Every structure is written in structure tokens, then in C-alpha cells.
């Protein structure tokens, strides 16, 4: 069993929908990259840029909740005030005007298609 703690929306779908090109998501393959120094930080590389996710505050919150298991007030307080992952957009490669992305993913796909034609 995996306990679902949080669902994070990077905002890609809503941004593309408002720009009228949600089809671009079909070429979107987000991948994770763990920060080599900070074990509470991971990065999401996707077709439209890079997001950083910091879960340090979530961990602290869980630690407080776990320590407060014997203390009803602290436990209750921790449960009532959920803490979420802090999400930062580090890099955006999406061009609203051109309705396209200049990303490594797209670049590689173009190269791949070119090679197939050749």
C-alpha cells in the first residue's frame, strides 16, 4: 500500500489549455532528477522546462506529527494544518507566440524523425 499524501499540479495542462494547444502534452515525458546534495529536493524535467520540488517542509511536518502521536493536541494540530511541497518553476522553454517548445525532448524527437526520413 502506498499512502497518497499529495497531488501536485505543475500547471502545464491549464497553461496549455488556456493557450489552446493541449495537444503538446502528447510529447511531454517528465522525468525526475534527484538533487545530489540536498536529499529533500528533486527536479522534474519536462517538455516545457524544469520545476524544483522541495519536500523539506513536508518532512518536518510529518516528523512533528509522528512525534506528537502521544500528544493529542500536537497530533491533532498537525493533522488539521497540512503542509504541501514547495514547487518552483526554474526554467520555462514554452513560447506562447509560436505555440511550441524548444526543449531537449522536442529537439531529440525532431532529430529522430529526420534520421528516419534519411
Amino acid at each position, binding site marked *: 500500500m*502506498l499512502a*497518497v499524501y499529495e497531488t501536485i499540479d505543475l500547471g502545464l495542462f*491549464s497553461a496549455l489549455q488556456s493557450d489552446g494547444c493541449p495537444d503538446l502534452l502528447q510529447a511531454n515525458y*517528465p522525468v*525526475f532528477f534527484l538533487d545530489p546534495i540536498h536529499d529533500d529536493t528533486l527536479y522534474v524535467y519536462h517538455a516545457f522546462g524544469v520545476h524544483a520540488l522541495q519536500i523539506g517542509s513536508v518532512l518536518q511536518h510529518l516528523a512533528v506529527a509522528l512525534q506528537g502521536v502521544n500528544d493529542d493536541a500536537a497530533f491533532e494540530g498537525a493533522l488539521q494544518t497540512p503542509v504541501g511541497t514547495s514547487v518552483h518553476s526554474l526554467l520555462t522553454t514554452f513560447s506562447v507566440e509560436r505555440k511550441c517548445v524548444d526543449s531537449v525532448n522536442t529537439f531529440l524527437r525532431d532529430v529522430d524523425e529526420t534520421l528516419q526520413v534519411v
Partner: protein
Amino acid sequence: MPCVLISLKMRKFASSFLSFASNGIIPRSVPSSYIHSLECFISAKQEFLSQVDPSTRRDLAIIYDYQQKYVSALLRQLPPGTVYPATSHFTSIHPPTSIKMLPIRQGPFLLQPEPRLLEGSEEEAATDIAYLSFGSDDDDEGEGSPIKHLGIVTIAYQDGRVDLFLDVDKVEARWNLKGVGWSPETTSGR
């Protein structure tokens, strides 16, 4: 710590996504302290089991025996003279050839509560999975912290959704042992 034997995999099934786990897939190179810790962990489990009546949990005893055999085989791959506790070195390892049993596929794991979906989104394919753990062996700072043994699993989806799960029920190595009756059906609902 036992996750050295674990690799999480995903597979698309209808419209929902399921996570599976399988042991027997190991990195080419690990710190030697990792294997020592794994051995300590399995010994501790066996000792705990021997304190309760072993005959009642014969199934667990057999699994732990196999885990013990597996780790012993890994220990023999360490360079001679590697003792614990010693400075940990990265050592190349390979899956033991002495273990003939096939690892069992575990899962699918129940996601609870059901993750929320992005409204209107049709690109729901999962694209990557990551496992985060905190407080390494060399770091005494986290000693005694309740989150030291907490694992976090994250899954990314095509539409820019990222789910964050707590690995509360750790996955352990299991093999397809005849007569013990371990199968995905009996392990998934735990």
C-alpha cells in the same frame, strides 16, 4: 535499507496506473556498508521472529532464510578484509548465481486515498518514478528522527501532475517458493 533489492516498475492498465515491485535487480556498485546494514536488518528480523513462536510464522521464516542466503552471497562478493564497521567503499556486485529461485512480482500496490486527477486532462500516462530516502548511514544527525526510515515515492505524469506517496509498508524481497504460497494475490492486499 532492504530497497537495494527492489526496483519499482510501472505498467499501464486500463485507465489507472499500478506500481509493481520486484527484487533481484541490483545496482552494479553499492557502498559496502549497505550490504552490512542489510545483513544486520535481516538478522534482526530473524531474531525477532525467533522470540515469537517460529512455527506460527513458518512462511516468514522461510522468506527470511532466503533473504539471509541472498545477503550472505552478496557479502562473499566484498573484497577480503572488508569488515564492519569500517570505512565504506563502493564495491561492484552482481546478483548471486547460487540463488536459483525466481523473484516474485509484487503488487499492484493500492494507492490510498485515490490520487486526484487534473480535470479535463486526457494525457494520464505515468512517465517516471523516484524513491527518496533520508538520513544516510554516515549522517548521525538524523539518528532517532522519526522520518529517518520514511520513504517517499513520487510519480510524474504526462499532463504535469506529480503524485507524492508515503512508503509506509516497506516492500521486501520475496521469491517464488513452492509450497509457501506467496503470490502477488496474497501479498498485494497487506
